[in-house]
């Protein structure tokens, strides 16, 4: 409910507006070329053709082969498919039935990773074990910690590329090198257990080149609606020879890895969005990084008792996450919304649970700090003027809320 006619969107990590160029590319595939990409007639073949062009664009960008690109309904499905698909395939495989399968992830992953892992642990406790790696106060996974926990039966390491809440960029390349070394050792020691490296790169494509060969990634998740594409479509890149089984059974689409009629307009949109992300990356990084520096410095200089959450060095250009002492995130969010400014919070009060952000707790913040956090995420349509307006409003909102909470102390 906004009393302001001004609209400032600073929640690009939640979702992005669809780029006009993307929407235009999609439009013909609703009412004109609406064929099912599996149909043999001309309607179907036209759809198949555009699906394959999108596949080529994405395969090229990820440095993968076309048949390694699996279209899904989004990052949640891609991440679920990674974890459950690898588990399903390996747990029934005669070579790997003697030991429990060991999975590794970090404590700051998106809930779709953490909850999929927990689901396996709960449902198949005799077949699987999971290690949740701690992170440091900046949100970084430690390579030595990771090396220490990799065992002979470790089959999957899943570490996100960019954390969605605090923007920390994980050392994916270094982790990839470590995984490669271990794979070579396994080969020499005749350990037949595969070791797959997956990264949820949902927040990454606008700002980072995702060359899976360079990064030694076996699986990668991307999503259209975080890169100015439509909602409801994503990709799981799966290197060939990865032992993985479909979790959604049916018509055997997507190289028998994901059944379900292809979302043709969505896939066209994703292809276009990914192409634009590649093309505009350099310019975007420069522009958004400058805005980020400007915004962080301005908040620090204008508002007292604030703390930047996350890393200064290993941080994606578009994320700014602050805790404002003496306030609660949801209250700040609601008051900013009344001024037309859209942000996000790490406070539980915006969700149905009482626990605040698991990410902020994992980097050692107190419950109180976590509850007082606000995430601002920028994008290619953000402007300096919008940020000036935001800091101006934010300053008086924080003052007002601190006046209301004055005198109460934990």
């Amino acid at each position: 409910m906004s009393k302001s006619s001004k609209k400032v969107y600073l929640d690009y990590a939640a979702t992005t507006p669809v780029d006009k160029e993307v929407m235009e590319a999609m439009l013909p595939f609703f009412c004109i070329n609406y064929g099912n990409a599996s149909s043999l007639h001309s309607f179907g073949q036209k759809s198949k053709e555009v699906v394959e062009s999108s596949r080529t664009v994405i395969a090229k960008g990820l440095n993968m082969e076309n048949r390694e690109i699996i279209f899904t309904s989004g990052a949640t499905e891609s991440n679920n498919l990674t974890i459950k698909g690898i588990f399903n395939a390996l747990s029934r495989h005669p070579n790997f039935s003697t030991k429990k399968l060991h999975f590794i992830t970090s404590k700051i992953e998106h809930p779709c990773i953490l909850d999929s892992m927990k689901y396996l642990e709960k449902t198949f406790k005799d077949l699987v074990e999971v290690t949740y790696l701690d992170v440091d106060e900046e949100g970084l996974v430690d390579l030595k910690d990771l090396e220490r926990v990799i065992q002979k039966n470790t089959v999957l390491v899943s570490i996100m590329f960019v954390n969605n809440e605090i923007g920390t960029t994980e050392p994916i390349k270094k982790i990839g090198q470590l995984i490669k070394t271990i794979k070579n050792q396994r080969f020499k020691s005749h350990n037949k257990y595969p070791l797959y490296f997956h990264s949820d790169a949902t927040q990454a494509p606008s700002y980072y080149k995702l060359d899976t060969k360079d990064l030694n990634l076996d699986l990668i998740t991307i999503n259209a609606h975080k890169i100015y594409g439509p909602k409801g479509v994503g990709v799981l890149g799966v290197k060939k020879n990865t032992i993985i089984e479909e979790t959604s059974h049916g018509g055997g689409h997507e190289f028998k890895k994901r059944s379900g009629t292809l979302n043709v307009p969505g896939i066209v949109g994703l292809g276009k969005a990914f192409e634009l992300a590649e093309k505009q990356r350099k310019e975007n990084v420069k522009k958004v990084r400058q805005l980020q520096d400007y915004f962080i410095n301005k908040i620090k200089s204008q508002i007292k008792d604030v703390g930047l959450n996350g890393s200064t060095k290993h941080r994606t250009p578009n994320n700014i996450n602050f805790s404002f002492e003496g306030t609660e995130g949801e209250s700040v969010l609601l008051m900013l919304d009344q001024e037309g400014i859209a942000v996000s919070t790490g406070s539980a009060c915006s969700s149905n649970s009482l626990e605040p952000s698991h990410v902020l707790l994992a980097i050692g913040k107190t419950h109180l700090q976590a509850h007082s956090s606000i995430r601002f995420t920028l994008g290619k349509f953000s402007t300096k003027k919008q940020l000036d307006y935001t800091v101006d409003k934010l300053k008086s909102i924080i003052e007002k809320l601190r006046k209301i909470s004055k005198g109460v102390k934990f």
Partner: protein
Amino acid sequence: MYSKKVMDHFTNPRNMGEIKNPDGEGEVGNPVCGDLMKIYIKVESKDKQEMIKDIKFQTLGCGSAIATSSMVTELAKGKNLKEAQEISRDDVANELEGLPPAKMHCSNLATDALKKAIKDYYSKK
């Protein structure tokens, strides 16, 4: 998510602030859920009844925590202590035209803080 009335009390909280030398004060909350409230009361005896003459609150918390604090002070002001003690979390939620289910614990806190303030008053007597 919130009713108009909640947003009104959140945006323009009634009786916000501190009473110097209060007759009773009550503080409740916990850092895990992130809400903390303090209620101050001033009591006046009139026609053999003890009335809440003035009441103020300070709250660190979400929209619902601030709105319920504000509403409790409005409901309690001018009531005798017995009536004030009987204000329930449902009363507060109803007066605010409803609260999201997950937020009901916040209104609970507001009435708890008031009860604590009244108790504090009795214990000092």
